[in-house]
């Protein structure tokens, strides 16, 4: 394996691992801040206990998210020097803005939040919680704007042998980035919702702290329901826009080979890297409609995309289906929980299933990012720079060393972290009384 493929795998491993923790940080931080707000408004201790208990899990998760994020910023320099030199003028500034405008706030106030229970008034402490929640989501905005530039570069001009900034507003207001942002954030909220629902269901089934977990469950169910619907609807709009600017990704995720008007959607399709092994049960015009909201629209097929500009097809195709399949399941699951929220304990089967649902939003989010990033290949910046031109002049041995070390450390930390979170979750709020 060469340094390029290793670097790609390493970056994929590093981002995926980082993104186990980020969505829960985004979603849970808002939920915890809302619990603290409820505490400040009503003065009821139970809300404070809720914030503290979910906060304990949050802190373990947050620590893993932060430390795994540090490597990402530096990997652009270590492994992707060609990329950094070519688009650093734009991409680098977005990362720097993220650090100064958001990450500082988040990291300072997580310390304040953690250590401030006895030092700050409830109101001030609640503000600290919102600073953490707001800053994490603000941080996501800048990272996604940076990713949006890689997906559909805007606001630049090629000059002095690199992409230079021409119009900052175009970079920041890039529609691709904002479609992505409003897809990713609701997905993180839905994940936070299902996380709390799953843990609460486990305790409700055991009739443990029913008031505590009943309240947590109801709050989480409402959040999961609203945001699973928002994610799905927004995802469709995001897909429409993507179809316009990234025809190769569209063709790959549908494994669509022949350019045609009124393209059908095959209910049964076995994709391949050089053509489909099976196409059956077509719905006429459905693909054109899904992509462009028009049954007659022309959809470019992979046959008309040069072979060296096609993304990996099977992986892109499958990730899309996993994401959409799970995305359809979530509103149904959350909807049931919300409708039956007052007598949810009469549905033990549902409560038994919910803890097993916790991993599913993660799977959906991973599939979504795989679609976004693998589907963008062979471009690191769509249509502008190839991934193969972006890699550093480093040796296979160097990347191999860091890849192996990173995977070992991450795996150990990940296992320990998830085990710790599970432990806290199982103990329930009783964990707050331990010294």
């Amino acid at each position, binding site marked *: 394996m060469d340094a390029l493929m290793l670097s790609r795998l390493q970056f994929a491993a590093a981002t995926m691992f980082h993104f186990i923790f980020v969505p829960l940080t985004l979603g849970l931080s808002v939920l915890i801040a809302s619990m603290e707000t409820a505490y400040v408004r009503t003065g009821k201790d139970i809300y404070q206990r809720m914030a503290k208990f979910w906060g304990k899990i949050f802190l373990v998760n947050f620590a893993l998210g932060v430390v795994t994020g540090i490597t990402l910023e530096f990997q652009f320099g270590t492994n992707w020097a060609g990329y950094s030199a070519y688009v650093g003028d734009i991409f*680098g500034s977005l990362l720097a803005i993220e650090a100064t405008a958001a990450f500082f706030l988040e990291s300072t106030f997580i310390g304040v939040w953690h250590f401030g229970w006895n030092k700050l008034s409830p109101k001030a402490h609640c503000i600290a919680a919102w600073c953490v929640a707001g800053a994490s989501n603000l941080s996501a905005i800048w990272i996604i704007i940076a990713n949006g530039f890689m997906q559909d570069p805007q606001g630049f001009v090629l000059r002095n042998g690199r992409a230079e900034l021409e119009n*900052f507003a175009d970079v920041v207001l890039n529609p691709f980035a904002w479609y992505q942002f409003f897809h990713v954030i609701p997905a993180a909220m839905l994940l936070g919702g299902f996380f709390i629902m799953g843990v609460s269901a486990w305790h409700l089934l055991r009739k443990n702290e029913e008031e505590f977990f009943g309240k947590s469950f109801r709050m989480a169910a409402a959040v999961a329901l609203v945001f699973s619907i928002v994610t799905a609807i927004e995802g469709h709009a995001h897909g429409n826009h993507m179809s316009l600017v990234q025809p190769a990704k569209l063709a790959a995720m549908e494994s669509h080979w022949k350019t045609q008007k009124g393209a059908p959607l095959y209910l049964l399709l076995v994709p391949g890297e050089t053509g489909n092994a099976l196409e059956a049960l077509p719905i006429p015009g459905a693909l054109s409609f899904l992509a462009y909201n028009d049954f007659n629209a022309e959809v470019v097929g992979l046959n008309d995309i040069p072979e060296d500009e096609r993304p990996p097809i099977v992986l892109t195709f499958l990730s899309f289906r996993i994401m959409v399949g799970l995305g359809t399941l979530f509103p149904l699951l959350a909807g049931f929980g919300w409708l039956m929220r007052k007598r949810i304990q009469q549905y033990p089967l549902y409560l038994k299933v919910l803890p097993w649902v916790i991993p599913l939003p993660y799977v959906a989010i991973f599939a979504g990012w795989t679609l976004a990033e693998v589907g963008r290949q062979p471009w690191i910046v769509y249509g502008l720079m190839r991934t193969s031109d972006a890699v550093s002049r480093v040796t296979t041995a160097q990347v191999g060393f860091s890849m192996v070390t990173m995977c070992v450390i991450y795996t150990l930390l990940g296992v320990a972290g998830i085990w710790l979170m599970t432990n806290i979750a199982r103990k329930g709020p009783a964990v707050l009384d331990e010294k």
Partner: protein
Amino acid sequence: METMNYTFLQAIWFVLWGLLWAVYFILDGFDLGVGTLMPFLARNEQEKRVMYNATGPFWDGNEVWLIAAGGVTFAAFPYAYAQMFSGLYVPLMLLLFALIIRGVSFEFRSKVDNENWKRTWDFCQIAGSFLPALLLGVAFANIFRGLPLDETGFNTATIIGLLNPYGLAGGLMFVLMFVMHGALWLAIRATGDLKTRSENLAVKLWPIQVVATVLFLAFTALETQLFGNYFLYPFLLVILALPVGGLVLMRTWMGARKWWLAWGASAAYIGGVAAFGLGGIFPAIIPSNPNPGNSLTIMNSASSPLTLKIMLGVALVFVPLVIGYQFWAYRTFAHPVGESDIHY
């Protein structure tokens, strides 16, 4: 006129770039120092926990200065960022891994009541504090000395090449600086016996630091071109007032048992060492040695004027804001660690 403005912008960014690294050294310096000192100062579980909590509320916010320094290198001097980070690949990865295991140790250690579990995370805390201090010193000493860059700016240094005597001396200098800074921080935040031991350690370290500084300066004169700028523009020697003044005042205030002030003097010393080094390499960001013609400078690696201008606006708004709320956080939590402050 246009070019002059551009050069001026680049110079401003060089200063800001240096400032961010200096602030990072000052802030993360003391918590890395405290972590390094753990096996030497903590005599029992209670003292270990005090040491963890002495830096607990701050380390995360401190580390972001590293992210910001890295981000600003990327944004303002992308070409230097690309060459610096890919060229220092192995030491940088080691630094990151060390910081990762240290960061997690804070959160994980207290969660399970088991001797082996705690010992594991103590090891991560100690190694994850000592290694970054050492590696940062090695990296920056090598930058001061100049890296072997070819005509495309590609860095051909190997890890063995980086571990040259001057690089290692830089590593030891950084460890010493951070340990001193950490001992003074413990003199502020610890109580009782641990406080006394930290104070005594700081007092004992001081003469070593003075001798080490003088030797390192002499070594620098032999090994680097760092003094060139200072011979050319002697008024720049004013910068030396920071490290020298810092050293003198550190001792004065330690004698007067004013630990906050002594810590501040140590911060000035660290900032001064960074400023002296960076003032010496200007206008290079990564000087090339032995071919100065291949150096990466503020001129050949900067971003476009538009990016530099926008980033300047961002920095002028947000950096004071960050300093403001971090200052508030320090004021809220920097009292001696009491029973109610033991969270880890």
